[in-house]
């Protein structure tokens, strides 16, 4: 696949001469491309959150090429990105995974001058600041692993170098999920996870890199210890954190640990668990069964995560151009709207606004009470009129991030200790 049609060259020069915005605005109308575009297949893999068949269908409609999606859990995603670079074209991974995978050289940097909406990407992914006054949270903040020194760079640089490791696509702020009907009182601190009141009815996720952060939030909230950086603990801090949780485990605090999304939904919906670490769409899934479930904002703030699209190092020629086309399309709004109507945030919220109704935008982004029924992208009604999003507006939620999902320098030690915790 080294032959490239002339049409494509024309289009590229268009992009270079500042026609990028026009090209992006023309989306989702099909591009005038060489016929061979239709034969292109891009293989994307990633965690379940954004690997949606609807996206692949829309890509086929709008861009003409085929997107093959594979959904895996975060461990497998890391493994595959790090060890099988030829098995994918596009990696849809989280920023902490990027920190692990990027140094292997299996991904290639992306030229930001080819990204039409680059300037509109929210500050979190560029200089780390949501608003100019924001304090950068602990952990692997996306902007710290978002840029590299050049096309073939395997390092990370602090400034906006023009070469991005991942194009941010989706992110959210996570907190504890609770069953208000079974708890019957307000919950406002992370420390409640280890409250003996919920003995045998609590759960935490069994994914070490994320679980340890939730634990750190709890330990800090209990007043046991204040971490200089929750995202990069020392061995002593790891021992302390897991020690507290091992003791709780032995005392029967936890009903179960969960590893996959649906496990967390089942634990909550069946009432096995009344308080646990949870992800936003899992809350929605519980609620759509008619069971009350709240994504409880907590005083200490949120544990946040962000994902992005990375390109395989072996991608070149027409496939590479198609991948850029896909990225530009991704940021142009349709996907953003689709994801935001599930409770996630888009990296370029202002383009997503065009693909959402004013009421949806008000509910999901601005934290305003819903005027009418709020449906998810699949048409299922999620909230009735008058409902307000847990945690409020985008700026309330993303502005209260206490730490980002992270990978630590002492990661291997932490993982071994985590295994001991599970075996304890």
């Amino acid at each position, binding site marked *: 696949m080294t032959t490239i049609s002339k049409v494509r060259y024309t289009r590229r020069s268009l992009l270079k001469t500042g026609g990028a915005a026009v090209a992006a605005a023309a989306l989702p109308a099909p591009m005038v491309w060489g016929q061979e575009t239709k034969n292109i297949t891009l293989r994307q893999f990633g965690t379940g959150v954004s690997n949606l068949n609807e996206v692949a269908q829309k890509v086929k409609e709008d861009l003409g090429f085929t997107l093959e999606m594979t959904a895996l*859990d975060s*461990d*497998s995603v*890391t*493994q595959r990105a*790090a*060890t099988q670079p030829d098995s994918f074209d596009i990696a849809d991974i989280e920023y902490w995974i990027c920190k*692990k*995978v990027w*140094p*292997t050289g299996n991904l290639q940097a992306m030229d930001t001058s080819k990204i039409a909406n680059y300037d509109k990407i929210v500050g979190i992914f560029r200089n780390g600041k949501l608003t100019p006054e924001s304090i950068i949270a602990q952990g692997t903040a996306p902007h710290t692993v978002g840029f590299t020194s050049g096309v073939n760079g395997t390092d990370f640089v602090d400034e906006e170098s023009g070469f991005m490791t991942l194009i941010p696509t989706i992110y959210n702020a996570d907190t504890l999920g609770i069953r208000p009907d079974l708890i019957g009182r307000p919950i406002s601190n992370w420390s409640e996870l280890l409250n003996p009141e919920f003995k*045998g009815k609590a*759960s935490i996720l*069994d994914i*070490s890199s994320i679980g340890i952060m939730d634990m750190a939030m709890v330990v800090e909230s209990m007043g046991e210890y204040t971490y200089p950086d929750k995202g990069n603990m020392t061995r002593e801090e790891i021992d302390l954190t897991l020690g507290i949780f091992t003791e709780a*485990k032995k005392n029967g605090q*936890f*009903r*179960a*640990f*969960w*590893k996959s999304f649906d496990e967390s939904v*089942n*634990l909550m919906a*069946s*009432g*096995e668990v009344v308080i646990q670490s949870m992800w936003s769409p899992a809350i929605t899934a519980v609620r759509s069964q008619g069971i009350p479930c709240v994504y409880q904002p907590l005083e200490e703030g949120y544990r946040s995560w962000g994902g992005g699209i990375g390109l395989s190092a072996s991608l070149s020629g027409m496939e590479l151009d198609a991948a850029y086309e896909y990225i530009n399309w991704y940021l142009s709004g349709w996907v953003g709207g689709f994801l935001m109507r599930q409770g996630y945030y888009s990296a370029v919220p202002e383009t997503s606004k065009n693909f959402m109704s004013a009421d949806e935008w008000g509910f999901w982004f601005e934290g305003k009470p819903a005027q009418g029924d709020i449906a998810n992208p699949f048409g299922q009604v999620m909230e009735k009129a008058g409902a307000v999003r847990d945690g409020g507006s985008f700026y309330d939620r993303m502005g209260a991030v206490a730490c980002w999902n992270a*990978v630590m320098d002492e*990661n*291997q030690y932490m*993982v*071994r200790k985590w*295994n*001991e915790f*599970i*075996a*304890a």
Partner: protein
Amino acid sequence: MVLRKNDVTGWALATPLSAVLAVFLVAPIVMIVVVSFWGATEWSIYPAFQFDNYAFLLSSDVTYRVFLNTLKYAFVTWVFTLLIGFTVAYYLAFHIRSLTWQIALFLLCTIPFLTSNIIRMISWIPFLGRNGIANSTLISMGVIDEPVEWLLFSDFSVILAFVHLYTLFMVVPIFNTMMRIDTSLIEAAADAGASGWQTLWHVIVPLTKPGIMIGTIFVVALVMGDFITVRFMSGSQSANVGRMIQNDIGLLQYPSASATAVILLITVLLLIGTLLRFVDIRKEL
């Protein structure tokens, strides 16, 4: 040495199986042993000859606890599958008179095994849960006032699932050996004045030993190597060796996973080797 025609035929006949075993059994095991001496960084593994993986594994008391736990699961599961398996096989072999019914009932035993064992395992979860069928039935019958917590996500549920999944592996070989017991031996025992229990203990059990042993090997090997049952039925709260290996693989620690696998393999081989000291199954096959 001159090859006689018979030798050539013998070698030719043995070659396909040897080749298959070499490629699909010996080579992977050799590979695992080799990799167990390698080193790993967070995202890659590199060839080396070091004992780090074993040193870490054998010096951690978690390893011993996990191995002990795995052996515990294997032993308890073995006891229950043996009791149930033997009883079922005995009933089929000696209480059902017609061969047609024996075959029909035997096939009936295998019907649940036409579904995926993951499905069979997971279907216990809603049944045993806090608000599950078992608890709500017990409460409505007045047996208990509060839901029983240990039914699910406990050692109980893990072993229940194991017994449910693996009893058939005990039934089949035991039934098979029982069917080959000459009934005149039982008549002779009765004629000599043996009671039912004496016949069972002194005639049937000794003659069934090879079947019991084959079933035991199946059950022990399956339980020792399992990871998914323990993960789901204990709600990730218990660990066995399989889960330890799975966790390592998930975190790209292939060398450490290989080292654990090698130790597990040695443990299982020792266990089966010991078992085979008691019964010579080849003689009986």
